[in-house]
């Protein structure tokens, strides 16, 4: 049995044998492990995984324990993508030389990185992997902050968020720069498949992960990961905040095939105002002061404009 798991509904999915164990030390209510479980459980194939330094890496491999039931490489901050690309190239070479028999099933190669490792520190490495066209999947666990080191801003931190290196106070409203549009950047690399997923929309996510595993070549997945510690909401609200993020279109769920064919995969029935999404997270609480009201208005305009842009691109097929 290899290939993707046939998942018709959640009941049939729940018969999957777990490949990611508990007793890792991620915060209670962390979305990282929800995403990792959904990805690992979606396939029957053997996996070669690596993780960039970040919450996921340090919390799932605290010596002398490991939480991974698959091959896993502990690597530096910047090079989870290259570590997996190297393993993929080695697999290809050894098969060519006959040192790995054709009876051994092909494994899948997956690299995980946080948004710091993807948007900032590992970007050059990631870009190189995509240019060389390795057959791998790169998953960015996007929690919009360097959560592992204490909440410094990254280039994924959105405008107005209070982070420890861009704190909100009497003279500042927090982060001043807008978030990098990493999905369009990766699509521009000529990647055959690029998608944004969210853990609360598990069915959409599984579909995209399956498609990603079936695609030959470098696949980029941007996974929205609500961070209970740095977004400062209560641990049990993770799914609620994720729902607000997808329904307010701050994280629109879409995919880009071959850099041109854009499909919106989730259209919320009731679009929630961005104000509700911001209000659920105390990292934005200063925006609700009267002097910063204009920022919320700008947020809404920006989100609306981007949604409009996605719809136009979907229609135009460019």
């Amino acid at each position, binding site marked *: 049995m290899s290939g993707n798991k046939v998942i018709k509904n959640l009941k049939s999915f729940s018969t999957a044998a777990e490949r990611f164990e508990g007793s890792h*030390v991620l915060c209670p209510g962390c979305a990282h492990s929800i995403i990792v479980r959904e990805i690992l459980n979606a396939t029957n194939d053997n996996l070669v995984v690596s993780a960039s330094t970040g919450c996921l890496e340090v919390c799932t491999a605290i010596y002398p324990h490991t939480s991974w039931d698959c091959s896993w490489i502990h690597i530096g901050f910047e090079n989870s993508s290259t570590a997996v690309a190297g393993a993929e190239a080695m697999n290809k070479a050894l098969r060519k030389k006959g040192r790995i028999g054709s009876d051994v099933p092909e494994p899948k190669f997956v690299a995980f990185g946080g948004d710091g490792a993807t948007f900032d520190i590992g970007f050059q490495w990631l870009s190189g992997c995509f240019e060389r066209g390795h057959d791998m999947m790169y998953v960015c666990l996007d929690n919009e902050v360097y959560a592992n080191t204490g909440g410094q801003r990254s280039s994924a931190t959105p405008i107005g968020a209070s982070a420890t290196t861009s704190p909100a106070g009497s003279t500042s409203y927090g982060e001043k720069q807008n978030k990098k549009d990493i999905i369009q950047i990766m699509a521009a690399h000529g990647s055959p498949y690029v998608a944004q997923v969210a853990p609360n929309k598990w069915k959409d996510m599984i579909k995209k992960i399956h498609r990603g595993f079936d695609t030959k070549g470098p696949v980029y997945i941007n996974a929205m990961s609500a961070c209970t510690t740095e977004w400062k909401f209560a641990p049990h609200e993770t799914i609620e905040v994720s729902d607000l993020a997808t329904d307010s279109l701050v994280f629109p769920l879409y995919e880009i095939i071959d850099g041109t064919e854009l499909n919106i995969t989730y259209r919320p029935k009731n679009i929630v105002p961005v104000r509700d999404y911001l209000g659920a997270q105390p990292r934005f609480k200063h925006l609700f002061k009267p002097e910063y009201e204009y920022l919320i208005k700008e947020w809404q305009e920006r989100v609306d404009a981007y949604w409009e842009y996605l719809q136009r691109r979907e229609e135009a097929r460019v």
Partner: protein
Amino acid sequence: MSKSIKDMGWDELVQGAALFSFEGEVDYEMSQVQPEDRDYAETNSRNAYVGDWRVEKPVFNKDFCIDCQFCWIYCPDTSIIARDKKMIGVDMDHCKGCGICVEVCPTNPKSLLMFNENTDNEEALTQWPEKSEEKGE
């Protein structure tokens, strides 16, 4: 590994600090074999314990459960035990008491509720709320 990793000196550890998830060779397909049939190594975090992180614990009431498995998919700690499409219970060694399972439970009244860690499970079941008239969120 015959000697426990906790008793090893620094010069006896495996080179490259490799940690093994399973004892011996794995000659079965990981995706097909449920955890109870696997031979976990001492170094697998399944053998670790984080139950003492909890302040509140989820209590499962199977009378109201409809086996929708929302709790299973959204549990960050692999602590909801589901076998043969049925929800069986909560793995208290790995549950950190985040409360996501309670939040996503769709039944009325909920089939999972948070109680103080020191509450007896039997006692918690007697305090279960009645079906509420108000529609859930």
